[in-house]
């Protein structure tokens, strides 16, 4: 296999006096430097700036960019993240000057186009959720969770109820307990049963009049649909609690079932997972939330409203609102891409997304589960969690070794060691946009790796400039900037 090389730093390639630009002489009178900036305010020497020719700079960045893995170049079965194809059409539309060059301080009368789209997106997301009202403001899924829980807290406060606990399954995303804590609740863990579903006995034991919200991910992070959801909703509602849905896995149920029909009272969407928004880099993102009617008055202000004359406006007149959670109106560019995706698919297309996501995951699971067993049995939804536990026990090959070796085969590693309730977890989500050939080729790669010499796997990846970084030192003493030696 060919080992990629890391290009030298620009500083290392620098040659004094080399330059990319020839600047014209000044067209204003020269003044002595001392007159402009007194010596005591000047550094002893100029800052170190690399000096290179333009071609060297271009090659440096182009070569660096080829070290990246992306869905546009590689299969990317990163469980929970739904790394599906993001249609280029959405990018093209988002870049048109009508949308791309807008400014939130423009007069409302000149923003009618985007406002009408956002208004429509609010009702589309409400319809998909089977709920009544939507806020598009949160800037990420996790902020959506926090916003929804703050909305719930306000709802209980206005009802004069003091409820302190949020119940969360042990298979949940780590953001769930973090959001519960940040919004002032105590996070209480609910066990999973042997099937990987909510342990109903543990749920009943911990459910009380102190329970504000139960945060459920369904299908859950094991890729399993929990059919107990309606029973859970009934028990919870009986105690006056609210059912929250972490919508991370909506691509498995789009158009098949509406969360509201299962008893869900509030939820968030991850447009970057479900509706092909851009991934990564920490944003910009979006995490719209949908809620039942009784929670609507407390949603963040403003919402997009339609006035009697048919024009669209931002409605700030919301006296019970929890207030603003994001400057302006959230990341409208991401919301716009989600809108384009949804409208391109249409209702039938959205349903097909769910069908293909589930079909692809089950096909791939069937191809590999004799080598990488899936501890929780039964049909999966859009993803499955396999375990490298036997390999670890018999041959000392851990999930991390498999993940690192996949890089040598030009595949992005799946999510590993999550959820925490599966030992040596490999969380694999092929997504709906992959072909049968890609799935079969990936299954073949996994089987090849399973048969390889453990020594080869322990030292993988062999093709990347950096193989196994010292992750402990990287976490404790990160070196984030270049400094002159």
């Amino acid at each position: 296999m060919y080992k990629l090389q890391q290009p030298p730093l620009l500083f290392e390639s620098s040659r004094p006096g080399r330059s990319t630009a020839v600047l014209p002489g000044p067209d204003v009178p020269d003044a002595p430097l001392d007159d402009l900036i007194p010596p005591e305010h000047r550094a002893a020497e100029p800052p170190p700036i690399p000096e290179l020719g333009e071609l060297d700079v271009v090659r440096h960045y182009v070569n660096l960019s080829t070290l990246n893995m992306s869905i546009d170049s590689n299969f990317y079965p990163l469980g929970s993240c739904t790394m599906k194809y993001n249609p280029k059409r959405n990018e093209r539309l988002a870049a048109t000057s009508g949308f791309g060059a807008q400014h939130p301080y423009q007069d409302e009368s000149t923003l009618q186009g985007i406002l009408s789209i956002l208004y429509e997106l609010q009702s589309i997301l409400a319809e998909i959720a089977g709920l009544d009202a939507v806020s598009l403001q949160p800037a990420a899924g996790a902020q959506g969770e926090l916003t929804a829980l703050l909305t719930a807290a306000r709802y209980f406060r206005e009802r004069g109820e003091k409820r302190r606990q949020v119940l969360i399954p042990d298979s949940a995303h780590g953001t769930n307990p973090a959001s519960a804590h940040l919004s002032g609740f105590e996070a209480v863990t609910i066990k999973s049963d042997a099937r990987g579903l909510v342990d109903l006995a543990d749920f009943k034991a911990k459910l009380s009049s102190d329970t504000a919200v139960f945060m459920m991910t369904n299908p859950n992070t094991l890729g399993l649909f929990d059919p107990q959801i309606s029973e859970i909703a009934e028990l919870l509602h009986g105690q006056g609690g609210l059912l929250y849905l972490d919508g991370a896995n909506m691509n498995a149920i789009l158009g098949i079932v509406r969360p509201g029909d299962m008893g869900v009272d509030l939820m968030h969407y991850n447009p970057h997972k479900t509706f092909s928004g851009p991934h990564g880099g920490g944003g910009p993102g979006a995490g719209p939330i949908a809620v039942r009617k009784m929670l609507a008055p407390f949603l963040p202000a403003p919402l997009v409203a339609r006035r009697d004359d048919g024009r669209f406006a931002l409605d700030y007149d919301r006296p019970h609102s929890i207030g603003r959670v994001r400057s302006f109106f959230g990341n409208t560019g991401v919301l716009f891409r989600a809108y384009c995706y949804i409208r391109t698919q249409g209702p039938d297309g959205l349903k097909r997304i769910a069908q293909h996501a589930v079909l692809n995951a089950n096909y791939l699971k069937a191809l590999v589960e004799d080598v990488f067993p899936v501890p929780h049995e039964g049909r999966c939804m859009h993803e499955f969690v396999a375990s490298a536990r036997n390999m670890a026990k018999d041959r000392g090959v851990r999930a991390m070794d498999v993940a690192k070796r996949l890089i040598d085969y030009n595949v992005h590693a799946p999510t590993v060691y999550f959820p925490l309730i599966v030992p040596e977890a490999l969380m694999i989500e092929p997504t709906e946009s992959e072909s049968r050939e890609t799935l079969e080729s990936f299954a073949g790669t996994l089987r090849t790796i399973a048969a390889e010499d453990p020594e080869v796997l322990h030292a993988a990846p062999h093709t990347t400039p950096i193989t196994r970084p010292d992750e402990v030192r990287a976490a404790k003493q990160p070196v984030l900037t270049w400094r002159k030696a």
Partner: protein
Amino acid sequence: MDPRSLHYSPTHEWVSLDGEIATIGVSQFAVEQLTDLITIELPRVGARVTAGKSFGEVESVKAVSDLYAPIDGEVVEVNTAVANDVSLLAADPFGKGWLVKLKVAPGAAMAGLLDHAAYEKKIAEDGGH
């Protein structure tokens, strides 16, 4: 400390009881599962801990995991050496890597804890989960 003489919680903490003082640590198995450790947060002397509730957390390159108290009590000593250098826990979980000493609450029971043989059986059966 001899691992065979200790008691274990299902969440992988070990207890050694000497009179009313209980020394608490984390099992070798759990440390191996966590892989490379980065930091650990331990309670202060004087803090009260409750059986089954979190008394601290350990962060590895994999995840942040809660440490659960195996028994009710009050913290009387904290292993500052481990707090300053968590690699001690990885190197010697049953010895120099002990975490805290508790003055056990009157009447606090070791109920629900496993002896060494039962703990070994549990981790062999379910992979510790």
